[in-house]
């Protein structure tokens, strides 16, 4: 039915199957939309946030999707600025994932604020000294960059590409993509960092507060670093999950391994910095405010915020995946690689969790207790919404756009491509799009 829209030379599932799939995921999404409407109509009393937990699940989700969406800027940086040419085979997907993550982040911010109709005040009455202002500006601008990066891919849909103007536009945008990628890297550096600055500058909250350089606390740099390390891991993770879902290899191993290796070394660097930061904070910063390390981790109900968090974050989800990813053997072992990127992603999620929730949970006044929080179903539904939205976006893009340039080569549907052709150097053209020779049929 929709075969005219499907890229040439690739096989896709039957339309009815696709519609059912979108229907099921769409139902989950509608559940989230319903919860958003409740929040909009009735207000934030629909959440389980309170005056102790002004930030909760949503802000965590926000920080996390932005960190994981960091794969887009960092892969773009590596591909266009550093010149890692192999990464052109995964850059489309990295951009798509980034686009989903950032649009989700903006969506979440749209209902997280108490007065959504005034959300534009953050731009209009900007307080340039606030980390959140910097986040809002850079985030919105960078989302613009992601739209610009995603647009050429969308224009490469078989039917849209037939329109000469769109065809030329897509080509021209590819030509100067490095300029956009550089702008994206600049903006990302600042908003990822500013998100780290959000807890880092709170000198009234000893768990989050860090010293730093000039106006930037150390968490500023740690957040940027962890996004650059964890983001590509998320790109790899989603690529691997997509490959499992469609039962096809979509990206060649050498591309994945290159990205994994770079992520691994980034993660090593991040872990060294994180350990130094944690040590300095535990040994000097916190004691100067009258806290020991264990004051932040002990005596809380159910050990929800126990020391296990720190061990999990730095050890299991930090050092371990870093070690796997920097070894050739680890990257070549499919299970080890999958485990490593999964752990690295979990590590980033956990880091954002503590830097949002634990900061607020730790009692600062000596006569107050640990604050407790469990999200309401409305909060959960609205947080699952971006996941469902992401799955739909990926499904649509995968079906109708040439997201994976290597898919046809890896999954020939007609006569297999000859070995000699495979040995040929890659053509010097932008990543996605039609091969010089038209394929006989779509599916």
């Amino acid at each position, binding site marked *: 039915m929709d075969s005219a829209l499907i890229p040439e030379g690739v096989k896709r599932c039957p339309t009815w199957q696709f519609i059912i799939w979108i229907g099921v995921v769409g139902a989950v999404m509608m559940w989230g939309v319903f919860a958003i409407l409740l929040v909009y109509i009735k207000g934030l009393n629909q959440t389980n946030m309170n*005056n102790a937990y002004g930030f909760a699940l949503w802000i965590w989700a926000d920080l996390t999707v932005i960190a994981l969406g960091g794969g887009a800027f960092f892969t773009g940086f590596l591909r266009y600025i550093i010149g890692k040419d192999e990464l052109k085979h995964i850059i489309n997907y990295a951009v798509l994932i980034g686009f989903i993550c950032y649009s989700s982040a903006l969506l979440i911010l749209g209902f997280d604020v108490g007065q959504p109709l005034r959300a534009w005040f953050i731009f209009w009455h900007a307080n340039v000294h606030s980390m959140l202002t910097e986040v809002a500006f850079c985030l919105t601008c960078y989302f613009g960059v992601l739209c610009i990066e995603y647009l050429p891919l969308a224009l490469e849909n078989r039917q849209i590409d037939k329109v000469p103007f769109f065809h030329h536009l897509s080509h021209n945008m590819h030509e100067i993509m490095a300029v956009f990628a550089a702008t994206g890297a600049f903006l990302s550096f600042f908003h990822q960092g500013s998100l780290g600055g959000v807890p880092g500058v709170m000198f009234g909250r000893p768990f989050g507060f860090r010293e730093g350089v000039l106006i930037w606390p150390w968490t500023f740099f740690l957040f940027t670093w962890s996004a650059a390390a964890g983001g590509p891991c998320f790109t790899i993770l989603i690529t691997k999950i997509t490959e499992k879902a469609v039962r096809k290899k979509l990206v060649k191993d050498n591309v994945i391994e290159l990205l994994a290796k770079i992520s691994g070394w980034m993660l090593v660097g991040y872990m060294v910095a994180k350990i130094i930061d944690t040590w300095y904070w535990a040994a000097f910063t916190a004691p100067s405010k009258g806290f020991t390390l264990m004051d932040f981790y002990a005596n809380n109900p159910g050990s929800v915020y126990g020391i296990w968090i720190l061990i999990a974050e730095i050890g299991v989800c930090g050092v371990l995946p870093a070690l796997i990813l920097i070894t050739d053997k680890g990257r070549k072992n499919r299970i080890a690689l999958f485990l490593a990127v999964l752990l690295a992603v979990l590590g980033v999620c956990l880091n954002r969790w503590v830097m949002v929730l634990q900061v607020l949970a730790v009692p600062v006044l000596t006569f107050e207790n640990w604050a407790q929080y469990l999200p309401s179903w409305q909060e959960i539904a609205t947080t699952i919404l971006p996941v469902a939205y992401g799955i739909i976006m990926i499904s649509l893009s995968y079906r109708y756009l040439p997201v994976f340039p290597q898919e046809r080569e890896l999954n020939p549907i007609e006569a297999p491509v000859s070995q000699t052709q495979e040995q040929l150097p890659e053509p010097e053209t932008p990543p996605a799009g039609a091969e010089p020779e038209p394929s006989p049929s779509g599916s």
Partner: protein
Amino acid sequence: MEKENSKKFGMVIDLDKCTGCGSCMVACMAENNIPFREDETDKLLSVSWMHVYRLTNVKPFPDTEECYLPRPCQHCEGHHGHSPCVSVCPATATDYDMDTGIVSQIYTRCFGCRYCMAACPYHVRQFNWWDPLWPDGMEKSLNPNVSVRMRGVVEKCSFCIHRYQLAKDQAYMEGRREIEEDEYQTACTQACPAGAITFGDLNNPKHAVYQMVKPDKKNGGKPKNPKAFRLLERLGTNAKVYYLSSREWVRRAGDNYLKTEGQAKHA
């Protein structure tokens, strides 16, 4: 920057006198049109600009001691007006006034991001989770000098700044430039039956608050009176609410200390 004749309004609360009766809370609610709900059991969802804490020395009977601690907004000055909440507000909806030392909140500017709540270690900033509704007829008793707040914004103690404005207007009408100490007093100060709360200008040596705590200007406003302390002094919030207590354990409860730090730290 702070001008030469600028004021620094502050409060001194004598915990030896406070009985924990809650009059200050009630007066504050009435004065500032603070909304309430039928069910106020969850105090983390309530709005109370002035909140009275009950402290205990955690010792078994008969050594058990208690102390009540009223906590308004501490109107932190931080370092050069960078109080924890003011610098983080993305929309400039809260401001540190160098002329009065009061941390203001512009309700119609606030869009409810709650970053200031996260930044404030004293939990003085509270969110309007619900629309403010008053029982039928009660809206007639609202204070016309204080705007009511809408759902979805943060609010906090203002040191009854509307009273300062009224006092200044009065003085202007009478051809005076300065107001007297007793012309501007907060609602909680006047309501306290034990006289535990004193309010005034910490920059003015003639004012009672100054004489009670003797703030050391060169030392970040730290009190020279050994009985006086501020909450969470070590965080560098540079608060303008001082507490007096003759009991060591109460003074020590005002801040966090490592076990290795001696009792004499806050003598």
